[in-house]
């Protein structure tokens, strides 16, 4: 267990600038998700921490110690690979024992620690099986046991739930979170799945094109993303453009056709063009017009069971995605083609920056 620091790390691979001046600190015991599209450098970041990639410049520190030149086998970093990378010619027990044997743990201790590690992932009866005889979920739990039994300073998880089917993902998500918390290991989860990042981590670092573009708690980043890209990457979103209007203490944004939307922020000058963002679930559908509502026509209704996605067309070719509960449509007896009025609460209208800042 230790604090992990990446300090102005640059990595070039095959003539390409993969990591650009990446600085990031993961606190002791924290679980950080590295989120970004494929090719954004998140896997390279993981491989840099693990020691498979050497940074061209910058420093990596574990527990304050610079480990730039330390080979992977001397770093005490546990990794769960995307495809689990279980040794096919070894039993589950031998797989878990491997790291302990490499560390010259006394053989008397190995058996007990392997048993404990397997018990922690509820696979104590599977020690004599081979990986090929396990299901996907079981393989992943073995990989977790193998990576954690060595009591690593840092635990790295590469797309941990990527290879599992939907139902298994949901159960493993809860299990993984509980395991990480009970072990208290400093953890990095690399993922391209925003849901995985939101549900598993204490903080999320969003990466685009080798740069860290946003950093914050899942709630802060989801509810108040700094930029259009981050907002869109973290979930469904609506964005609209308008001009800032100020009237004493109140700030509003004028969008097309006399629509004035009051906002909760005030750090913009009157007349400035801004981009606003709002999550689909924060927009309310009203049957009747009210102050600052936007009149729209329902274009499409997509029923999702617990929720329903409503796509509406507004004035000046505006289009909104609204997420609500089916009862809401039902009670107001709204369906395709009907006119609705959207209410966009001021505190949910986020001011977004167009370009990606180097830092949040």
């Amino acid at each position, binding site marked *: 267990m230790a604090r992990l620091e990446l300090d102005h790390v640059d990595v070039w691979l*095959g003539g390409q600038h993969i990591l650009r001046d990446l600085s990031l600190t993961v606190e002791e015991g924290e679980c950080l998700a590295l989120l970004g599209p494929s090719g954004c450098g998140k896997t390279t970041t993981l491989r840099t921490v*693990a*020691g*498979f990639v050497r940074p061209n410049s910058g420093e990596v520190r574990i527990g304050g110690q610079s480990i730039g030149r330390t*080979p*992977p*086998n*001397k*770093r005490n*970093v*546990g*990794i769960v*690979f*995307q*495809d689990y*990378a*279980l*040794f*096919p*010619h070894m039993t589950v027990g031998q797989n878990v024992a*491997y*790291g302990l044997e*490499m*560390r010259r743990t006394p053989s008397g201790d190995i058996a007990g620690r392997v048993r404990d590690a397997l018990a922690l992932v509820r696979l104590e009866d599977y020690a004599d099986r081979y990986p090929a005889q396990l299901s996907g979920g079981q393989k992943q739990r073995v990989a977790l046991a*193998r*990576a954690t039994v*060595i009591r690593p300073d840092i635990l790295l998880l590469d797309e941990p739930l990527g290879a599992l089917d939907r139902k298994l993902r949901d159960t493993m998500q809860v299990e993984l979170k509980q395991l990480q918390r009970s072990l208290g290991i400093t953890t990095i989860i690399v993922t391209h799945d925003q849901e995985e990042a939101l549900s598993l981590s204490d903080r999320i670092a969003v990466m685009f094109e080798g740069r860290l573009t946003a950093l914050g708690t899942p709630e802060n980043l989801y509810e108040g993303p700094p930029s259009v890209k981050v907002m869109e990457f973290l979930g469904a979103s609506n964005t609209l453009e308008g001009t800032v209007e100020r009237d004493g203490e109140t700030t509003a944004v004028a969008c097309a056709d006399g629509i004035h939307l009051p906002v909760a922020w005030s750090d913009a000058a009157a007349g400035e063009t801004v981009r606003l963002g709002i999550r689909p679930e924060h927009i309310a559908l009203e049957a009747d017009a009210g102050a600052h509502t936007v009149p729209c026509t329902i274009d499409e209704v997509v029923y999702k069971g617990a929720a329903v996605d409503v796509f509406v067309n507004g004035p000046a070719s505006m289009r909104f995605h609204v997420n609500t509960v089916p009862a809401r449509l039902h009670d107001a007896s709204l369906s395709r083609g009907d006119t609705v009025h959207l209410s966009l609460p001021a505190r949910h209208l986020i001011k977004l920056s167009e370009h990606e800042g180097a830092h949040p």
Partner: protein
Amino acid sequence: MSEGSLTRITVTLVAWLAIAFMVFPVILTAVVSLNASFFIEFPPKALSLQWYENIGAIHRIGEATLVSLTVAVASAAVACLLGLGAALAIARHPLPGKPVVTAFLLSPITVPMVAIGIALVQFFIAIGAAFTWWSLVVGHIVLVIAYPVRTLVAALTLSDTSLEDAARSLGASRWRAFRTVTLPQLKPGLVSGFLFAFLISFDNYPISVFLVRGDLTTMPIEVFNYISNNFDPTPAAFSTVYIVVVSVLIALAEWRYRIMSLSIPR
């Protein structure tokens, strides 16, 4: 009868004919070897094991088989070792001119063996090492190295690089990770590469014929000499023994290591 089932019957028939075409000479050899008659005749009138007893009549057959055996084992072993290095470079490292290196290593399969034989004998004469057991081994390494390279590249391509990374992250040094994790994955590739190299070397005639002289001789050369001077089915008896031993070897390797998956391109 529909067109589809007609096609299927035709394909099945052709497939069986092809198999029969391949198996028939083997069966014929066995039948002839068991024939009591001096002359090759089919079907045999009476059965006997006399040609098996006569195998010893092939000039220096024991000695020659021993040379073939030791040369085949030595050249296959060295070819596997060198092939492993080459395969690792080809499959795992960003090697400049990789297609050229690969093509070069596989070229003994495509270059006429007579050409290789002539080149080798001139080379060995030039360095003063011609017509020795060692030169025969080196010549056969050139001949057989393509096989382990091929099966090992296939095995390395199938094996997962993240396994070695996993071993390294768990505390294994580079060499330890290779030995305990990668090498076991390569076992089928090594076994099939060795077996192919061994078999290709063991019954090679066109290259060996240039490299032997005087006391040094190999099994295929002596068998061929015997056939040139005699008409009896003794070589058929020898071949039958050979076919049975090789078939058992391959069946064992396949049963234990599933080597066919590596040698048949997919």
